[in-house]
């Protein structure tokens, strides 16, 4: 039977925490007690093997699975620069360096080149304030490339698509309604900007009841297609 004190000393020796006085004590004890010597030898071998255990690499897809499963970023209350006018707010955000490269093609402009982001006055909406009611439809996206959600709201100005996405690479979204398209390029750029929230008002006849189809592209490949039902206003 090995006493508690010497079991502690054996473990302290293994952990490299033995003082010279304790070492002398333990040495004498081990000489007198062969079962303690056997325990010490076994534990040294065991702990040596444990300490030499090499960590195995995690699965290659673990990081992507974790990042892909993160919830969408929480809405920010002070996303805009403070102006009450959506167009000016968007311009302020641009001036602030967000450099959103979303390009919106208004409904009714299909077949023609769309204006650049600075010229789409009236089509970009403030995602924080231009739609205060509950969404009439929501799709959730959870892919390795992009996660988050797209909400469809009805506002006086028409239907608003609210994108609340976090993407690991540039994403292109094509929204189709009534055979016409809105195309958003560069949503969720892989830069330090973490708050990828955009909104776009769809005005005109296409905002009647119908189905809005959303197609998400990454690297030119379709990664997800979803539909939102737009009720009549």
């Amino acid at each position, binding site marked *: 039977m090995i006493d508690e004190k010497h079991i502690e000393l054996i473990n302290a020796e293994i952990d490299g925490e033995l003082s010279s006085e304790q070492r002398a004590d333990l040495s004498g004890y081990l000489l007198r007690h062969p079962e303690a010597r056997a325990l010490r030898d*076994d534990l040294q071998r065991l702990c040596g093997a444990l300490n030499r255990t090499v960590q195995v690499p995690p699965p290659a897809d673990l*990081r992507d699975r974790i990042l892909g499963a993160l*919830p969408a*970023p929480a809405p920010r209350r002070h996303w805009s620069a403070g102006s009450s006018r959506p167009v000016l707010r968007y311009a302020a955000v641009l001036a602030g360096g967000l450099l959103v490269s979303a390009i919106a093609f208004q409904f009714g402009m299909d077949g023609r080149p769309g204006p650049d982001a600075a010229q789409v006055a009236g089509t970009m909406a403030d995602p924080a304030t231009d739609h205060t009611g509950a969404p009439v439809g929501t799709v959730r996206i959870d892919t390795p490339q992009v996660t988050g959600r797209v909400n469809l709201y009805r506002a006086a100005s028409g239907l608003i698509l609210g994108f609340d996405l976090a993407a690991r690479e540039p994403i292109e979204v094509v929204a189709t309604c009534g055979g016409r398209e809105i195309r958003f390029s560069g949503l969720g750029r892989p830069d330090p900007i973490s708050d990828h929230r955009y909104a776009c008002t769809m005005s005109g006849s296409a905002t009647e009841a119908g189905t809005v189809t959303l197609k998400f592209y990454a690297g030119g490949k379709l990664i997800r297609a979803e539909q939102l039902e737009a009720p009549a206003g």
Partner: protein
Amino acid sequence: MQEDGDGALVQRCRDGDRRAFERLVTRYERPVFNAALRMLRNPEDARDVAQTVFLKVFEHLADCDPKFKLYSWIYRIALNESINVLGRRKRLEPLGGDEPDETPGPDDELHGEQLNRGIRRALMRIKPEYRAVIVLRHFLECSYHDMGGILELPEKTVKSRLFAARQLLRDVLRQDGAI
């Protein structure tokens, strides 16, 4: 670099910077996965636990006490999640079947496959609370102080539990003729 420290990354995460969180994942995915693997001996379960751990970390970063070491908190979640999986597994498999073994690691070739395999099997035959201290001390290289913080136990209790765990492992290995 200061900006690479856990505290700075946590602060950036709290500010909504997902790339900072990605760096934390990169930093801790290996130890978390390995801790779960040693606790569960099943790579699929370990992967699921690791994913759950980081999602919980992400959700609760705002509540993380800055005085507490981030890795201690992460390891605590990893152990608790692993023990939860063991609890569910126990309910499903009351007799405890043969769990799938993990892929042999480089340690097997370097340091004696028989003993390492014996240790992995023996680990599964001691209680999870004993397994946890072995994992923390020998696989995650935690100090007794850190172990006390992770397990919320006095250092003295941690030591006595570890010493008991080592002896239990030794007894199992002797029974199996692996040591």
